[in-house]
């Protein structure tokens, strides 16, 4: 660990050593170091291998902006070493190199293969023979890329969270301007959130929530997702202040990607924050005073500055000061080449506008510090609807228009010096908090005169050698030229063809260079070329963060514990966890026929419809009548849409004159409640709607012994004469107040018993106890499906789809077109009543004993599909295969045959239109 003497602003704690490994080798760091600063201090210069050519890449920006230091940390790829804090024991590995960073065999693509790897090379070179493409693709996939996701990850739990944060003002960027804005807005009483990618810029500030080490990912309709650690904050603010600063730009020259070529900001961060010397002998190339300031500070830190090339023609005060220190500043000069193989060992500098060896000078150095100007970080602002235009004298695109509720402050808005930045931040903060802002001191806000900058050429000198425009994707100046020659002559097309700006830096390093090259090659102005569209995410973000915590909400009935104790096979049924069977579905179904069965049907939707208009309300919602239903009686109902299609079904019991108890399918419960309340909101009738689905439990007790079992637990007269089929009665069962519906979904004498959920388990226990000597068995969803199929009772959604009408589903009797009342679906059903449906729902039996797959095809004589099987089961009581299917209407009659095609097998089915079991309903009514 070689370090400079104490730096005044250093972040490291020299008393605390942290140990981690890089590619298995131990590395020592200080607390406060980043992986990048620690490795650099350890002498490492090559941090990664490039995407395509596998060239060595080293630290460039030291600010998490460029792609050069991407590593894997503890198995997770795509982590930037330069901003990742060191942790004890962390395992850091390189990404894209075989067998290692310092000897990468794929480097051959750079040395011998350059001319074979222009943009789109894989489409051009590897197209013949075509059948070998899968082989080529495999090799290319392996060669390119930025790391590998291990399929076999060590077991780890990574819990990520969403958090919604509503605020008055969101400030993005915690620099001078951002902090001023946050302070000003908070002082107005605004609820402020301040986001910064680095450590907290201020300790605490009343009214400001500081999200440090957090990245704003984009701007979506007023929501800014902010990624911080394991949390994604979805920040919705009334107003936004963007103080996102600027991004230092590289220069395009031969060898500009060699390790040792570093942006001035990167070199300074290494020096000042981590006390790591970026090099011993440096050449500095700059287009503004920033590079000169960096040269002075690096010289202060002991770096020998051998030469400074200032692209500007005039010598500024900063240059004079350097000169006074004995540092030679060559004005009107640019860097033409960085020399070296593994790292920089020299730099060639020449005057602008003149070429040739006679005017070029080569300096020995191990560090090239470049500063190619500063581009405003406008991406998030552009996503929010701002506009940026090219400013010729600054050589970059600057904000020209802001949408409402969006403010910009500091460097991104052109306020470069600290005083101006602070004042612009304050003004933006006040405005964002809704406070009046005094008129600016001058037309241009409060900015000072800005120090001059020179606009660098698209590529330095003649552009020999590899001059990289894009480091992420290895796109050179030549590649951009080639793309224009091949017809991709707009920046958006060239972007897609060369993939420039599409890598991990998201255009931070390459957008401006690419635009300049594009302008040069097409002869357009930069204004004409324009910027590529800014899209989220602004920083690379793990998919797990976007996914959030996986929730799998489950509904369980109040009796669920009993099903588990009974060893039920429990499966998902919509949102519910339900007992599918108790291990013997056929036996459970038989028990219902032979003795008695008990099933938990708490999942049914249960609605209480109450009020003077309740009967009329239901008459308007259902195709059949309910206003004439007598209290204590039950009627089946099918809900249809205004298009005449079946939406749901269930039973309705009139409890008293003003009260109806409506059950719906389990999966349709929520939708039916919405549907009822929607029409109620529109019609505004004297009706109250209460959803009791969660509040009530229900069981269905069915079978020849059901009457006897129920009789043991209630004072109610359960005789066939007193408690008839389709009667609904209120009585105590096992001491619990219940509503008992005598219905026959499963085809035997049955009592659907509803009670408060708190008593569900007690009711179940009492019935099981009372039925013990009568051979009672619990039965699950699967035997219930066999039983209801025997009766051809439809399951909405299983036997019907969004096209099914009551007529097609063989229930014309449910539609009462003679009702005076208008009802939902009336007009469509009037139409369908006169029309023969193309297909009808019928039953079928299969003599060959094969149970066809639900969804199997009904074929006509020519083999064309004309219908489908919707339900099919083996019926133990009938000892044959039964099912339901939609078949062409002419075939929908007893005795006809249809052909079922099921996964390649064909079979003949016999059509039956009457229920398979107890077709006359004698058992049911007994």
């Amino acid at each position, binding site marked *: 660990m070689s370090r400079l003497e104490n730096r005044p602003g250093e972040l490291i704690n020299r008393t605390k050593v942290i140990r981690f490994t890089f590619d298995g080798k131990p590395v020592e760091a200080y607390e406060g170091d980043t992986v990048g600063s620690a490795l650099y201090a350890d002498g490492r210069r090559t941090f990664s291998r490039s995407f395509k050519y596998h060239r060595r890449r080293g630290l460039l920006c030291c600010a998490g902006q460029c792609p050069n230091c991407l590593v894997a940390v503890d198995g997770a790829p795509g982590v930037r070493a330069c901003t990742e804090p060191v942790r004890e024991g962390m395992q850091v590995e390189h990404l894209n190199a075989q067998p290692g960073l310092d000897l990468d065999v794929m480097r051959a693509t750079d040395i011998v293969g350059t001319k074979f790897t222009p943009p789109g090379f894989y489409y051009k070179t590897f197209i013949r023979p075509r059948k070998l493409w899968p082989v080529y693709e495999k090799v290319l996939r392996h060669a390119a890329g930025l790391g590998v996701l291990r399929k076999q990850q060590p077991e780890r739990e990574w819990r990520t969270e969403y958090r919604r944060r509503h605020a008055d003002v969101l400030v993005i960027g915690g620099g001078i301007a951002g902090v001023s804005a946050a302070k000003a807005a908070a002082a107005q009483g605004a609820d402020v959130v301040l986001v910064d990618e680095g450590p907290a810029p201020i300790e605490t500030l009343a009214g400001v929530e500081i999200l440090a080490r957090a990245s704003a990912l984009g701007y979506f309709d007023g929501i800014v997702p902010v990624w911080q650690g394991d949390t994604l904050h979805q920040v919705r603010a009334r107003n936004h202040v963007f103080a996102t600063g600027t991004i230092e730009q590289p220069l395009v020259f031969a060898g500009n990607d060699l390790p040792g070529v570093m942006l001035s900001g990167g070199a300074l961060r290494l020096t000042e924050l981590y006390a790591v010397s970026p090099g011993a002998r440096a050449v500095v190339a700059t287009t503004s005073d920033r590079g000169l300031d960096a040269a002075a500070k690096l010289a202060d830190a002991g770096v020998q500055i051998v030469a400074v090339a200032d692209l500007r023609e005039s010598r500024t005060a900063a240059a004079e000061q350097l000169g006074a220190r004995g540092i030679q500043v060559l004005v009107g000069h640019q860097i033409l080449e960085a020399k070296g193989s593994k790292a920089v060992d020299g730099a060639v500098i020449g005057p602008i506008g003149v070429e040739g060896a006679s005017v070029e000078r080569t300096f020995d150095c191990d560090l090239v510090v470049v500063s190619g100007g500063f581009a405003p970080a406008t991406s998030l602002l552009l996503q929010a609807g701002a506009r940026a235009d090219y400013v010729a004298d600054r050589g970059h695109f600057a904000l020209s228009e802001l949408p409402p509720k969006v403010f910009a402050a500091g460097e991104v808005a052109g306020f470069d010096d600290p005083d101006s930045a602070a004042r612009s931040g304050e003004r933006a903060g006040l405005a964002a908090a809704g406070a009046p802002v005094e008129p600016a001191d001058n037309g241009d806000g409060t900015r000072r005169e800005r120090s001059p900058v020179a606009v660098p050429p698209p590529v330095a000198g003649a552009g020999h050698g590899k001059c990289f425009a894009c480091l992420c994707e290895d796109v050179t100046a030549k590649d951009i030229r080639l793309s224009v020659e091949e017809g991709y002559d707009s920046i958006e097309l060239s972007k897609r063809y060369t993939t420039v700006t599409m890598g991990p830096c998201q255009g931070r390093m390459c957008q401006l260079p690419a635009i300049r090259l594009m302008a040069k090659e097409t002869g357009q102005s930069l204004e004409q070329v324009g910027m590529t569209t800014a899209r989220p995410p602004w920083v690379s973000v793990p998919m797990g963060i976007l996914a959030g915590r996986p929730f799998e909400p489950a509904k369980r009935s109040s009796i669920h514990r009993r099903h588990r104790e009974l060893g039920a096979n429990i499966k998902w049924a919509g949102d519910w966890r339900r007992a599918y069977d108790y291990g013997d579905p056929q036996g459970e179904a038989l028990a219902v026929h032979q003795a008695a069965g008990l099933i938990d049907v708490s999942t049914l939707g249960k609605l209480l419809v109450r009020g003077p208009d309740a009967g009329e309300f239901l008459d308007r919602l259902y195709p059949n009548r309910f206003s004439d239903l007598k209290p204590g009686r039950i009627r089946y109902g099918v809900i249809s849409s205004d298009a005449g299609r079946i939406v749901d079904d269930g039973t309705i019991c009139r409890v008293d004159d003003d009260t109806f108890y409506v059950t719906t399918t389990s999966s349709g419960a929520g939708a039916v409640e919405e549907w009822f309340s929607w029409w109620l909101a529109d019609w505004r009738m004297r009706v109250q709607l209460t959803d009791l689905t969660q509040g009530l439990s229900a069981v269905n007790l069915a079978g020849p012994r059901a009457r006897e079992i129920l009789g043991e637990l209630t004072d109610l007269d359960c005789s066939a004469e007193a408690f008839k089929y389709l009667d609904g009665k209120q009585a105590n069962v096992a001491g619990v107040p219940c509503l008992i519906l005598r219905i026959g979904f499963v085809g035997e004498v049955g009592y659907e018993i509803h009670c408060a959920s708190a008593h569900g388990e007690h009711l179940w226990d009492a019935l099981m106890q009372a039925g013990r000597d009568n051979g009672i068995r619990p039965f699950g969803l699967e035997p219930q499906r066999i039983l209801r199929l025997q009766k051809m009772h439809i399951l909405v959604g299983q036997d019907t789809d969004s096209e099914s009408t009551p007529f097609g589903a063989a229930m014309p009797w449910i539609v009462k077109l003679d009702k005076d009342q208008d009802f939902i679906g009336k007009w469509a059903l009037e*139409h369908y009543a006169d029309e023969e449906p193309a297909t009808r729902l019928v039953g079928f039996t299969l003599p060959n004993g094969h149970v066809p797959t639900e969804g199997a095809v009904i074929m006509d004589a020519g083999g064309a599909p004309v219908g489908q099987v919707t339900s099919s089961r083996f019926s133990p009581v009938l000892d044959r295969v039964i099912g339901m299917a939609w078949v062409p209407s002419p075939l929908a009659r007893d005795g006809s045959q249809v052909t079922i095609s099921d996964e390649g097998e064909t079979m003949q089915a016999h059509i039956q239109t009457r229920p398979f079991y107890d077709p006359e309903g004698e058992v049911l009514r007994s």
Partner: protein
Amino acid sequence: MSFLLTCPNCGVREVTDFGYGGEISARPTSRPTLRELGEYNYFRRNRAGVQREWWFHRSGCRAWFVAERDTRTNEVLMTALPADSNGGGAA
């Protein structure tokens, strides 16, 4: 799509709290032709501008209410229960 809606019962909530019931259209009051019925069932005006529409507070009070929203900007100009909004019009 992301904006805030004011439920007349519960107050300001994220739009993801709500179910969208679509633009308010008049249900025919007398027997429509098949074409009119098809238009009522399947055709929408799909207005670019302020439209009256149904919303349902699905994750809240489960009430239906009427909103006026500019479909171009998602600016919500008004929300009210049907009884307070001079008629919902048929859903």
